[in-house]
């Protein structure tokens, strides 16, 4: 099935290597020098706000959008030269794109039929694929008589049954309601681990990206802002955009002392978690790492929301708005209008260069 493998001179070629991938529409660059190396079996998410170029990037991988520049190599083979039908990639579309005149089983069988897989093997693989996504009993249903979640599973089974080298998913869960989405996330991760298929997922939902991925690629306005594991990008965002995009965060203007060992936010001074460059800085503290107490940063409670498992408290501080998230362990946080201090462990902070934009 695999087309001619081109000789590749680059050493240490990874499984999927994307380099300098660029797309320009009438002089507007919507994807700018996208570079990423993906290992076999890895689950990578492209995460970013609407219009940042995630879909365009995925479509270039799938072959539905021609790149203006750059290269895509899969196991050393140049993909850009191959038409979509010869790339051997599985794709799940945001609209699912199930064939409405075919049953679930016929949809799944389609890729095998055009590959001329013999009848008996085809039936067996379709059955396995239906079982894999938990739809064993639904083979004869037409897509429009299935729920969104079921259609989504059919689309996934259809993409996986051809045993793609890479699975491309474009916001596959965004049409599902919150509960179902969470269920499908777990399901998707399970299926991906069962099959070991290298997967690239496009999403604008940071919890989804963090829950599913081995690595996250954060994008903004066509550029990659940061690449890293979920915990790493959450704990050590490269800039305030990444920090804000990956959940709520508090950003305080601060100064690193001349010795590089102490940090001050206004009058509050604490030891630097690691040696830092002296001068102005931005101190980022996640809301779950802030507590109430004496000293620290002074603030007044503006709003307080009870969410069952946790409390969410918004404050106005001398250094701008702040948000605190406390596990509901019985203690009730300060009431609205009350003045309090915000305290944190020195190693709970993450320092970012101040010029790193709004």
């Amino acid at each position, binding site marked *: 099935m695999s087309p001619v493998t081109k000789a590749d001179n680059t050493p240490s070629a990874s499984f999927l290597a994307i380099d300098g991938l660029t797309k320009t529409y009438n002089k507007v660059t919507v994807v700018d020098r996208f570079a990423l190396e993906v290992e076999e079996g890895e689950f990578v998410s492209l995460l970013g706000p609407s219009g940042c170029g995630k879909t365009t990037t995925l479509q270039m991988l*799938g072959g539905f959008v021609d790149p203006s520049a750059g290269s895509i190599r899969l196991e050393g083979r140049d993909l850009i030269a191959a038409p979509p039908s010869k790339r051997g990639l599985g794709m799940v579309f945001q*609209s699912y794109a*199930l*064939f*409405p005149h075919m049953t679930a089983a016929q949809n799944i069988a389609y890729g095998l039929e*055009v590959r001329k897989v013999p009848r008996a093997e085809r039936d067996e693989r379709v059955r396995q694929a239906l079982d894999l996504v938990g739809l064993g009993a639904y083979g004869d249903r037409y897509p*429009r008589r299935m729920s969104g979640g079921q259609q989504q599973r059919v689309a996934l089974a259809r*993409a996986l049954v051809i045993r793609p080298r890479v699975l491309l998913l474009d916001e596959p869960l965004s049409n599902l309601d919150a509960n179902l989405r969470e269920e499908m996330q777990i399901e998707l991760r399970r299926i991906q681990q069962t099959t070991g298929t290298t997967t690239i997922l496009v999403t604008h939902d940071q919890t989804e990206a963090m829950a599913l991925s081995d690595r996250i690629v954060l994008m903004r306005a066509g550029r990659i802002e940061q690449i890293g594991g979920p915990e790493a990008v959450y704990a050590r965002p490269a800039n305030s955009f990444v920090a804000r995009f990956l959940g709520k965060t508090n950003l305080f203007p601060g100064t690193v002392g001349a010795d590089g060992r102490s940090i001050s936010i206004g009058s509050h001074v604490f030891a630097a978690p690691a040696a830092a460059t002296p001068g102005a800085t931005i101190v980022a503290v996640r809301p779950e790492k802030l507590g109430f107490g004496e000293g620290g940063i002074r603030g007044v409670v503006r709003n307080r929301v009870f969410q069952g498992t946790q409390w969410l408290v918004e404050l106005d501080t001398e250094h701008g708005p702040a948000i605190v998230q406390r596990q509901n362990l019985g203690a009730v946080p300060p009431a609205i209008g009350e003045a309090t201090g915000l305290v944190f462990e020195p190693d709970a902070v993450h320092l970012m260069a101040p010029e790193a934009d709004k």
Partner: protein
Amino acid sequence: MSGRNGFWALLFHTVFVIFVLAPIVVVCVVAFTPEGYLSLPVNGPSLRWFEALLNNRDFVSSFQASLLLGTISATLAALIAVPTAIAIVRHEFPGRTALLSLCMSPLMVPSIVLGVAFLRFLSQIGLGGTMVGLVISHVIIITPFVLRTIMNSLGSLDSALDNAAASLGSDGMTTFRRITLPLIAPGILSGWVLAFINSFDEVTMTIFIASPGLTTLPVRLMLYIEDSIDPLVAAVSTVLIVLAVLAMVILDRLFGLDRMLIGTNDADKDK
């Protein structure tokens, strides 16, 4: 309010339906008269005029000509319209809107002008008064109807379907045959029916290009009425009405009429 339609709305609909149906009913009843002139069959029904119709060689051959002309023209129009619609809906190319306007323009030009133009043109190229000439002119004026319904069908298809098929390894031709064609089939079929009806029904233009030896049914009827009005025309009309109703019923049973006339894509009927 309890009902969905108020009293005045119902009254309006009733009057409207009566207004539309009354002439048709009258024609059908008149066809059964035993008299030699247009009248209601007060002395009991008679099949006299239907018999006369069957024995009228002119009408029978015109009826055959119309059927043949409608079938060939509608089929050719559909064959032209499918690739044209795909090009216009799916692809971006210079002259796209110009092509669309060109294909739709026969709807804008008065039939009488087309008739004169075709008369000139067809006799110039030696096809005046022939079936080929009639087919050419009819294809041109009925293609817009098929094109419209097929474009509607294509437009309501998710464009990701083609990409999905391609990602599964399907080449362009296979995708067209197995995905696109079955999904636009209702649009093609309803367009074919509309085109056939328009061809069968066309008088204004055809009257210029038909010849004494080759005349369509409506033109024959027209010419006949010019010098004699007898219940024969009512009999012809009745036959046409019955055929039309039969066709409607069959199509409705097979495909669902409202769905066909709107040209939607729900090709998969519940089994």
